[in-house]
């Protein structure tokens, strides 16, 4: 297992390198001049040219790419924001905890609500339980999260005065953003779980389990659910990656300075360092999350765990089997 993890971590290097070159090239090709954004409307052409020269924007593509790769991979320097003059790494690290709180809490909520909802729907297939659960899921998917967010604010902040409508501070500031952001994910999770569960509970081994006289609880939670969880975990992993960069709407509505807002602000102002560094950072985070998802597969499914076993161990096991067969013979 440790060799597998190490191998995956080594694989991170070409992924990050590829992402770095790709995002640099995209930013190079995308129209829009960052210097005109930085200096404002009253800048003269001479001012603009001087600033472009200072930032190295007049250099050829390969020279700029080379400098960028050198700074990132040799000096681990992501540079400073051109607009705010703050080191990008420092700003990302400052914002990351807020985004992580929202993303992790959303995933947790999706697991705690979405999976049970999907199970209820599946075991009550085509009955009221299914219909109610799927209505909730449909509602969650249909309602845009910004609308849900504003409705929650109007009710819980303006009308009841229970929760702060925006800002950052203690846990209570995160309750509304997390609920609003988790809604679509809960719905997706519920539908995915229902679909997987329906497929599994029609399998022969579930019929066998029932025939053996196992309780319905055991059938569902011991046999059906573990087999239905793999696609659900994939959805959770993808969702976590998406949430890391995709909470911008919620961050904006609730004035939470997170990674998503930083990235979008960087795109709008053509703050190359911010965009490039944020994307690289997110690529690394996403790759690590996918690794975590794969490891979780192994925890749940012994067949996958077996694949993770190192060659040495497999060889050892093979030799053992061979020895046994020889012995029996």
């Amino acid at each position, binding site marked *: 297992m440790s060799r597998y993890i190490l191998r995956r971590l080594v694989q991170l290097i070409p992924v990050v390198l590829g992402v770095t070159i790709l995002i640099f090239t995209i930013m190079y090709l995308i129209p829009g001049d960052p210097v005109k954004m930085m200096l404002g409307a009253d800048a003269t052409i001479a001012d603009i040219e001087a600033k472009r020269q200072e930032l190295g924007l007049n250099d050829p593509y390969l020279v700029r790419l080379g400098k960028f790769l050198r700074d990132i991979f040799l000096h681990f320097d992501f540079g400073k924001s051109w*607009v*705010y003059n703050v080191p990008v790494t420092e700003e990302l690290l400052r914002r990351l905890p807020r985004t992580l709180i929202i993303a992790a809490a959303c995933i947790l909520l999706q697991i705690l609500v979405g999976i049970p909802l999907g199970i209820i729907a599946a075991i009550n297939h085509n009955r009221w339980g299914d219909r109610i659960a799927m209505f909730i899921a449909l509602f969650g998917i249909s309602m845009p999260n910004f609308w849900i967010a504003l409705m929650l604010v109007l009710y819980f902040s303006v009308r009841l005065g229970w929760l702060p*409508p925006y800002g950052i501070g203690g846990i209570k500031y995160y309750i509304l953003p997390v609920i609003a952001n988790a809604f679509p994910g809960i719905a997706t999770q519920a539908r995915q779980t229902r679909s997987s569960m329906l497929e599994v509970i029609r399998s022969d081994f579930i019929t066998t389990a029932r025939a053996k006289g196992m309780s319905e609880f055991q059938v569902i939670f011991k046999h059906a659910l*573990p087999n239905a969880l793999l696609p659900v975990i994939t959805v959770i992993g993808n969702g976590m990656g998406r949430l890391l960069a995709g909470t911008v709407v919620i961050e904006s509505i609730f*004035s939470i300075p997170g990674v998503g807002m930083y990235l979008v602000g960087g795109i709008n102002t053509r703050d190359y360092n911010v965009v490039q560094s944020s994307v690289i950072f997110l690529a690394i985070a996403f790759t690590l999350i996918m690794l975590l998802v794969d490891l979780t597969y192994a*925890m749940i499914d012994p067949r996958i765990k077996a694949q993770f076993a190192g060659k040495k161990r497999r060889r050892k096991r093979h030799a053992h089997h061979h020895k046994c067969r020889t012995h029996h013979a």
Partner: protein
Amino acid sequence: MKKNLLFAISVFMIVALVAGCAPKATEVPTEVPAQPTTPPAQPTTPPAQPTTPPVQPTAAAPAVAPEVTIAISADPSDLSPFVGMSMGRIAVLKTIYEYLLETDAMGAAAVPMIAKSVEKTGDKTYTVTIFDYIYDSAGNHITAADVAWSFNTGMAAGNLRPLGDIESVKATGDYTVEFVFKREFGVGELDKVLTECPIVSQKAYESSADEFATKPVTTGPYVLTEYIPGSRLVFERRDDYWQNDPQYRTLFSQANVQKIIFQVITEPAQHAIALETGSADISAGVTGDDVARFESDPNFTVFKFRDNLTWLLAFNGSEGNPFTKKELRQAVAYAIDTAAMCNAVAPGACEPVHTIGNANFGGYLTKWDNEPYYEYDLTKAEELFAAAGYKPGDLTIKLLAQNDARNALMAQVIQAQLGDLGINVEISLVETPVFNQQKYDPAAFDLLIDAAAGGDFIFSPWLLIYDQNRNKGTTGTFFKDDELQALLMTASSLDGFNAENVDAFQQYQKEQLYAYGMISFYNNVVAVKGITKVVRDTRGQIIPGACEYAPDFK
């Protein structure tokens, strides 16, 4: 299996926990500000440039309120004095820093702040004398050496554009500084330089771990006590503020409230909610129907300020473009109903203009309000269209604008109205960075919806649009006209800035119509009851210390 499930859940909980336990960062905010409640009365003659700043009249000290919270729309991120300007920084910098001079109102001469006087000692040389009793909040004494160092550091950083006109700055005494400029200045240009660079103690700045990015030490009447990047800034009134002479207390030296909180609220809908829930007291970010709601609510006051921005339609004057024909430009202007545009874009918060600029600016002549300026006349437009050699349906043009709600609406109105004239308009809405690039490309558009602003005199927006020295020998949209340039230079020069020359330029630009001033908006500032006066700086930013509060406010 239960173990495995528990493991998966635990992993996510640990991630959440780690995130929650991460060290608490100090957090930040940003926003929009100010002006008088009624558009200021306009001088008929532009004011002359003073060599020594005039003295600020003494006013009776208003009541000091305990606390006020201002909702701002963007995050300053970096509070250091010498980095570039952003929407977030504009909102708070005047509350943080002090400058050599300060301008209280558009078109007014600058008044002393750090500088006690400014004397012209040569064609391009000025001597600035500062007060000899200036101390920052850490007790550092500010001398001429600090002033020279601040300017030299600002110049080296290259982010404060007006400082590019400085040749050298040096301290010539304990409290005197000599400025040598690269050229002779026109009206208001010296003020622009001397009001641009924050003055700080070199010692304090160099002792700072982050160059004042999060903990600036300044000479202002307020001291920053809390800064949560992305969220809020808290200022406390200084008891030891150095300027005790009331005649020198500028607008920005006022401290009418004990504690100021700038709260960053990025979502416009939340500005209204913040006011309604009592978590903000003033906001310039309330939009649309919400403003009407607050107007009818006795617990709030809506202060209206005319914006400094003028929205204009610029014609492409590059060789071969149809808009090199004056008749066609005039035909387009007559075909556009700016009053109808106002109703479509911002009913009740917009007005047609009579030049590129409005009555906010110093030197604006009120007589222009009564002179014809291409009022909507389709018949006249059709005559001019025919005189330009076109028939309905002959001409298809590309209209370039920024991709936001207001620009999109303006573009649609223009498209419809020019359609009545027989011109086919293809709208190209692009995001701001792309717009800022394409507006310099003669092949990218025929018509351009743009905005021009300024913070002082009427010729400032004209210079932005027309000054051929700034744009490689043509106006911003590629017209070359020596007479226009000569008139503009005269109207904006120290000797030539008078009503006659300003009017001469206005009449010429109106006739040539390289750009057509269309509309100007009003900004609404909503304040809770008890805030009796909202004061804004020339950039439209709220100055909380200068606002006035009822004795029973909070």
